[in-house]
């Protein structure tokens, strides 16, 4: 009788020449185990927000600088930092944490434009970009530029002013960093119009940013490790399977191990390159 480890990871007459971990029932079990593990991570985050946290250090001025660099590249004029828009962005970020939401419009129906108006900025055109869970300003701006709607906002020729706020807090039990970017053009006509095609927002903090220190293990990092562990386990089993099949000329009814290896090797790269932030 083969050792259980051999049975699990290497093709052998006792496992019908296929590592047991690659059997269909084992894959179903692995999917179940993965989902259970993810649920455990989510529950830990929900029950003890302090245990897993995420915080970053994003300088709002750098966000503005990078935004202006992108506009410059597109041949557009740079935006001026506006204290009222900064204030509006800060108010929006604070409202999202206070009311525990991540959206352009609050659950009570408050639109971004009301924060701008409350700050005293009389806008003719206004826009908002949002981002969360990024660790540096470069990635935030890159993500906005990669999204057509956010890019449109960022490179809108109608805007003259910008305000950005960066704020740390807890959303749905997870410590996070929100970036709010607000664009605007002061009112030159009587009508005050909020651009209908603007769907993104972003805050920049006008005052000295709170230096935020990495305070804990990011749930995203833990999830990444959890996913990678499964992929690597499968890759290990597939590699052994491939070597044994070639070495011993094993003939059996099975999928193409080389194809599986290609697919899971791709998944390893994908799991590594996925960045943590999201934009809205």
């Amino acid at each position, binding site marked *: 009788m083969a050792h259980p480890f051999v049975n699990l990871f290497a093709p052998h007459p006792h496992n019908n020449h296929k590592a047991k971990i690659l059997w*269909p029932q084992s*894959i*179903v079990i*692995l*999917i179940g185990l*993965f*989902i259970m593990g*993810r649920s455990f991570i989510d529950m830990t985050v929900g029950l003890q927000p302090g245990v897993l946290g995420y915080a970053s250090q994003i300088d709002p001025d750098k966000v503005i600088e990078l935004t202006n660099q992108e506009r410059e590249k597109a041949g557009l004029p740079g935006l001026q930092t506006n204290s009222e828009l900064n204030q509006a962005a800060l108010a929006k970020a604070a409202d999202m944490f206070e009311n525990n939401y991540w959206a352009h419009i609050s659950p009570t129906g408050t639109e971004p434009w009301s924060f701008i108006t409350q700050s005293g900025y009389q806008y003719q055109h206004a826009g908002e970009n949002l*981002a969360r869970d*990024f660790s540096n300003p470069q*990635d*935030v701006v*890159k*993500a*906005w530029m*990669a*999204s057509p709607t956010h890019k449109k906002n960022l490179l809108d020729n109608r805007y003259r002013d910008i305000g950005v706020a960066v704020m740390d807090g807890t959303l749905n039990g997870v410590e996070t960093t929100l970036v709010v970017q607000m664009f605007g053009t002061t009112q030159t006509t009587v009508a005050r119009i909020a651009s209908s095609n603007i769907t993104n927002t972003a805050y920049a903090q006008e005052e000295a940013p709170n230096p935020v220190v990495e305070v804990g293990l990011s749930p*995203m990092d833990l*999830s*990444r490790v*959890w*996913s990678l562990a*499964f*992929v690597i386990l*499968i890759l290990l089993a597939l590699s052994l399977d491939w070597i044994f*099949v*070639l*070495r011993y*000329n094993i003939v059996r*009814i*099975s*999928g*193409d191990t*080389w*194809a*599986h290896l*290609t*697919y*899971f*090797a*791709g*998944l390893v*790269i*994908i*799991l590594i*390159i*996925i*960045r943590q*932030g*999201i*934009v809205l």
Partner: protein
Amino acid sequence: MKKLPLKNIFDYILLTGLVSAAILLILFYNGNKNYQEFTIIGLSLLYIVWGIIHHARENRLQARIILEYVLFGLLGCVLVIGLLK
């Protein structure tokens, strides 16, 4: 020792191309989880289709082989979407 599985080189190049394209799309859409989810679902579906066509071309297609591709595709999908959620 058997030769490396290069018999259907076109099939393997195609699969490598699909996986590479998915990696590039994931990289391009970094920060936009919806698009990244679509990309990984698309890759997994294409991988399953690739497996079925590849084995059909070799006259080795059986129900358990289809099941194997479906389960591997599903596992891959779950592992990446689990990270994105």
